[in-house]
């Protein structure tokens, strides 16, 4: 997808219950799946401790939440949507009654993310790059009010001291660190980051695509055509932001260039923070932590917007390499980091606000965003055949009541609409190729999705029939013809 790319795709779960756990476990280490995973088969002591803490709910104030609660292994370490009552954002908080602001991203392949590069606006952790490392990122949920909800580092350490692995922690980091809670929390996060970095289940490189690249698997004709459309700069142009070629970050393609983009996705009214009076959908508790951004113009349609890079979520205070604060750099408002597309079929809903439930919807939206949507505020060259606003029932952009919204790009203040990427394929502004036709036909959209499904890890070239994909993959499959294996 294009530059602005699916900045958001990474999230939660997808559709179907998979047996991915066992598949992933089989990958990286063993049988016939020598996929090039770059991590050792056994974990270092820190990583082994990190693995334990990653899944320890007792480190949360509610006692019900760990890293693994929102980053579920069988959903490519994104969230299991069944656990959040249908919300696109995770539940959390001391009473497990609060809700998050963004769709939880997949942690798979996160360890390849470069630190934030302020000169080129690339990299960093979280969807807005506000943490400089995987460890700094891993600290934050422990002390975030609507997640694991410890008041501070000291409370985390208090809980740590009740845990059976305390001696392991002391053996690694020393007993003295317990009297320095901030450092102790950093050490907890380092151990978790080590786990995410070392454990091959986070980056097995065992997808069908990987084995196809190695000449050990065949893509079906549909999948191969999908890859060609994915790469073609006049069709999908997905590779512009999600490179299918390897880059400097890994010996494998990561399907992200870690850049940022504003692609003008629709507002998701299922996120409580987006509603006029945000309250908990569980018990009606007001969501006081929803901070109205000071940089939202007063005449904006709505009060709260998630503005990504220029948003209200500040870089952590103890980050040794803090990302610059961009709240006054309004040209960056609405930009989110381009996610990897590996395992994307497992991580629905998509984008940072979880607005789309399937990959087909995502691709459909990409290629028709500026055709089927109301574009009254689309800053395109005139004459604009779609002006005034398109208010058709099939508009992607809807108001809180479900009717077509008066404005396109309605998850952004109107003043920031000019930030939306309209120049790249597959967006089809009126001046492009006659202005009417999407760059992908319905069948081609299916092909692209079929290809995206091949990025799901867990393929066994010795037993292709065991490759279980989410239902959304089966839904787009047209043919089973195979093409030749790579030479």
């Amino acid at each position: 997808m294009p530059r602005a790319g699916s900045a958001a795709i990474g999230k939660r779960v997808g559709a179907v219950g998979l047996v991915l756990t066992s598949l992933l476990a089989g990958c990286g280490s063993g049988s016939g799946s020598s996929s090039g995973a770059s991590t050792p088969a056994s974990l270092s002591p820190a990583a082994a401790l990190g693995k334990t803490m990653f899944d320890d709910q007792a480190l949360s104030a509610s006692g019900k939440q760990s890293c693994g609660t929102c980053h579920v292994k069988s959903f490519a370490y994104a969230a299991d949507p069944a656990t959040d009552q249908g919300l696109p954002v995770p539940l959390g908080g001391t009473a497990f009654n609060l809700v998050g602001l963004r769709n939880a991203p997949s942690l798979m392949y996160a360890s390849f993310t470069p630190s934030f590069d302020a000169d080129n606006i690339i990299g960093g952790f979280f969807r807005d790059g506000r943490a400089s490392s995987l460890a700094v990122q891993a600290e934050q949920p422990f002390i975030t009010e609507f997640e694991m909800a410890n008041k501070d580092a000291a409370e985390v350490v208090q809980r740590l001291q009740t845990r059976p692995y305390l001696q392991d922690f002391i053996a690694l980091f020393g007993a003295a660190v317990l009297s320095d809670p901030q450092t102790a929390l950093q050490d907890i996060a380092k151990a978790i980051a080590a786990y995410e970095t070392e454990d091959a289940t986070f980056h097995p490189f065992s997808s069908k695509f990987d084995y196809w690249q190695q000449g050990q698997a065949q893509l079906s004709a549909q999948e191969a055509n999908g890859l060609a459309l994915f790469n073609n700069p006049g069709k999908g142009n997905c590779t512009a932001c999600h490179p299918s070629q390897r880059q400097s970050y890994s010996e494998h393609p990561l399907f992200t260039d870690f850049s940022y983009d504003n692609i003008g996705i629709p507002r998701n009214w299922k996120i409580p923070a987006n509603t006029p009076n945000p309250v908990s959908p569980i018990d009606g508790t007001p969501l006081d932590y929803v901070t109205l951004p000071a940089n939202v113009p007063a005449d904006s349609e709505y009060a709260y917007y998630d503005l990504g890079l220029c948003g209200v979520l500040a870089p952590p205070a103890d980050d040794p390499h803090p990302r610059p604060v961009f709240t006054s750099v309004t040209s960056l408002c609405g930009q989110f980091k381009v996610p990897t597309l590996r395992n994307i079929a497992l991580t629905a809903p998509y984008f940072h606000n979880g607005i789309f439930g399937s990959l087909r919807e995502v691709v459909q939206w990409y290629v028709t965003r500026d055709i089927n949507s109301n574009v009254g505020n689309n800053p395109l060259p005139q004459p604009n055949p779609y002006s005034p606003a398109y208010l058709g029932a099939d508009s992607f952009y809807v108001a809180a009541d479900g009717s077509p919204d008066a404005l396109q790009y309605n998850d952004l203040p109107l003043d920031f609409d000019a930030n939306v990427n309209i120049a790249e394929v597959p967006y089809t502004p009126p001046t492009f190729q006659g202005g009417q036709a999407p760059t992908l036909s319905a069948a081609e959209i299916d092909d692209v999705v079929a290809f995206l499904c091949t990025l799901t890890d867990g393929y066994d070239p010795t037993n292709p029939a065991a490759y279980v994909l989410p239902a959304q993959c089966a839904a787009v499959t047209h043919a089973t013809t195979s093409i030749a294996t790579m030479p």
Partner: protein
Amino acid sequence: MNTKSMLFPRLCAAAGLSAFAAVAAAADPAPAKSTDQVEQQIDALSQQLQALKAELQQLKSQNEALAAQQSAAPAQTAAATSAKSSPFDNLSLWGYGEVYYDRPIHDVARTQADLARAVFGIGYRFDDRTHFNSEFEVEHAVSSADDPGEFEVEQFYVDHQLTNWASIEAGLFLMPFGLLNEHHEPTNFYGVQRNFVETLIIPSTWREGGFALHGNTDLGISYSAGLTTGIDLGKWDFAPEYPAYTTALELEDSDVAPLQATHQELALSNAEHLAQYVSLSYNGLPGFTAGGAIFTGNAAPVPAPPNAPLSGHNRVTLGEVHTRWTPGAFDLSALYARGTISNTAGVNLQNPGSPNPIPSKFYGYYLQGAYTVWQNATYRVSPFVRWERYDMGANYAGTSPEIPSGDVPLSGAPGDYGKYPQSHDIVWTYGANFYVTPHVVIKADYQTFDVNRDFTRLDLGLGLYF
């Protein structure tokens, strides 16, 4: 800088023995001479040549005598000599550069003016048989992280003469291919821009690191054979989002052509595989030269995914033949170049949908004719016409380029749409060089393109060389 001419610069200047000098002399007076006049002139030149030969022989004899005296001289002579000599005595400086104005007539918004290159050379003569040459180039006026320019070392080599007919050079040197690569100063070619064949097929200014044996024989044959760094296919871009070029000028500067994109210029070059070349040239007749060269070697491959099976070597080969004839006021030349890259099917198939797979064959050729219509004192006017054809992707293995049809975004700027350019064309160039002095030239030309018709352009240029 003509590297080989640096071997004997003073000799050339004094004796006027180079082909260019002969051409200039032959082209001397007015145009449109009768056959008798031309014959008389040739006779006169022949006599002058004989006289110069005699003078040269005399100079050689004097030098030999002087050398003998010096070798037998007492120590005090050496002391006296060193007292008077300076390191700068053996230093030579030169330079060249070009400024141009380029106006695509169908897309005037992309009109550009540029100080395309400013080059300064430094040479040092260690002794009569050993010297060093270097050239440093600034392209596009300003070189910084925020500007388009580049600073490059274009040559950096040591040359040592072994015998009268053999020398060895080592370092970063120009490849002896075609008519232009070693003679790329703006006074040495017709047209504001270099021709496409010797830009896109032969990647002028093409230099490699390594060493070579070269020399001239009494029969007028010059030769060069070397072992050099080669091609790195790992630099190939399979996924350009936008066309690498939208005008003829951008085409020349884009480094998108097969060898432009992959030659290494001794900048942390991958040297796992070395390449070999041989070039031969015949210069035995005044005003005539003909030659050819071939380069071949295994390239550094496109990096494969871990555990991918070895796909075999990619051998890159480039061959060319050329000739130039300067009878009277005429200056006629022709060149053919052809390149191949083997075993590209596998990597191309890994990148389906790419608008830019690696070609297995590319070629180009041109014919060019110029005529000096007027000459007075240092002034000279030479109109020319050139017809050339190039194809950067004559064949592909495994796949074909997916070139988007219709209007496509040409850049990230909203509304910047146009046709995706084709990688082959037939180009006519009509123009003239006006030499203010043999070292300062003002140029103008008009180019038309049969395929990429929007590339048609008007060029104006100023070049100098000292």
